[in-house]
């Protein structure tokens, strides 16, 4: 793992009992402050890769190097996974309070983070009172409140409508320059991957391996109309091609 990397897979393989090989062998390195999208078909081990990066799971073989310590990695799951009995503010403050931050400063930081994700005024709301997009924002605020070095997103916008997911993608990109965490973003939407990431990694159908990689040029905050630029469409085209080829050759 080079000096800049915050996480790396070295010859990582994951086997699940009864299911066989789920992932690997795979080599992967995450550089500080970059945004990487993991793209691949269902069951290609994207979520497994994310759990390895989060330290929630250990590889069967190989090694996962993680520079981020406890509390420096944050995960946003597919669903908002907020505790229904807590207010938005208390949900966001939870990671800080679990790490021992006293209640008052933790709540203070949570309110600030909610404001940054555009949820000012919803501090006292319960998750059931939030729309899907707002709940996802609260979930994002909870991930960002600890100022993580690594932010992992597991298809976070999958359950949202197209307009909301585009808006959230823009908001996330707008928030990113402040803390500049390294982001790994799992999706099966090629266009979303290109829009969000500086580097898109394509994975093969299970067992997941790396089929190829495409770098996306352009500023991290995408200018309006980025989806219509030649650079965007070229990247999407190249990615689709890699995906097509990886699907044809059975692993």
């Amino acid at each position, binding site marked *: 793992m080079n000096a800049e990397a915050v996480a790396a897979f070295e010859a990582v393989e994951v086997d699940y009992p009864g299911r066989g090989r789920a992932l690997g062998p795979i080599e992967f390195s995450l550089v500080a402050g970059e945004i990487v999208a993991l793209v691949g078909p269902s069951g290609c081990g994207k979520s497994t890769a994310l759990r390895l990066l989060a330290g929630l799971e250990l590889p069967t073989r190989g090694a996962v190097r993680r520079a981020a310590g406890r509390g420096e990695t944050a*995960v946003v799951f597919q669903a908002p996974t907020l505790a229904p009995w807590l207010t938005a503010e208390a949900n966001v403050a939870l990671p800080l309070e*679990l790490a021992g931050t006293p209640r008052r400063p933790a709540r203070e930081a949570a309110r600030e983070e909610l404001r940054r994700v555009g949820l000012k005024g919803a501090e006292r709301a319960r998750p059931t*009172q939030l729309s899907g997009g707002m709940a996802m924002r609260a979930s994002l605020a909870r991930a960002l409140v600890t100022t993580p070095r690594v932010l992992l997103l597991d298809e976070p916008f999958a359950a949202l409508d197209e307009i909301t997911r585009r808006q959230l993608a823009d908001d996330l990109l707008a928030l990113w320059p402040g803390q500049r965490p390294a982001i790994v973003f799992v999706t099966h939407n090629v266009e979303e991957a290109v829009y969000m990431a500086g580097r898109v990694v394509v994975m093969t159908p299970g067992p997941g391996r790396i089929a190829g990689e495409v770098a996306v040029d352009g500023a991290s905050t995408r200018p309006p109309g980025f989806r219509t630029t030649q650079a965007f469409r070229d990247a999407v085209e190249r990615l689709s091609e890699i995906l097509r080829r990886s699907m044809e050759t059975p692993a």
Partner: protein
Amino acid sequence: MKRWGPAIAPTLFIGALLAFWEACCRLLAIPIFFLPPPSEIAVALVQNAPELFASAWLTLTVALTAFVIVSLLANAAALAAAASPLVEASLRPIAVTLQVTPIFAIAPMVAVWAGVDHPDRAVIALACVAAFFPIYSGSVAGLSSADPALERLFDLYGASLWQRLIRLRAPSAVPQALEGHKVGLGLALIGAVVGELAAGSGSTTGLAWRILEASHHLEMAKSFAALAALGLLAAALQLAFLLLERRALEWWRGA
């Protein structure tokens, strides 16, 4: 009309049943010491209202005391079980044994342990035995029903076992724990009555004593009146708990 619909149907149904009962007693000229008609029971209920009320109050006190004690015990046990699978496995046979223990079978022993001077304590203990299992199993089920994604989040932030229990599992358990307490409350009331029947009540006289006393004197109407008082008490208790549960769930869901 629409609003009262749910209340009208059962009222009419029960009214029809009572009318049928009344008609049978009168037409077939059933002796009152064999089966009293509802009208006689109503008269007995009114005539004996003061003492029935006092007895119902006593039974209620016993049931609620047992309910509070057993809720504390069962929830402490459930928390311990949630903290350690070993504790859970150790407690399971005891919980199941308590579930199938007939109160009548252990009443004489419990009465002896409580001492001749304290039959009330024996009755409370028996009501506790009756109510333990549903409360314990409801809380255990609730404590293990936390959202797996939230469990992963607690893993991610390195939460301690205590943090996990208090901040995740206990609040997640609320809906199922309430369900267990609802069943447990009914059983505590039954336990208070059956316990009194089986262990005796000394100088104190709960509803069970009223039922027993009346039937010994072949005062069937009075016996039925005591049963009716018990039914009303149970209904009131369940209604109170339902309202409480609704409020608690509203708080829990935040809606």
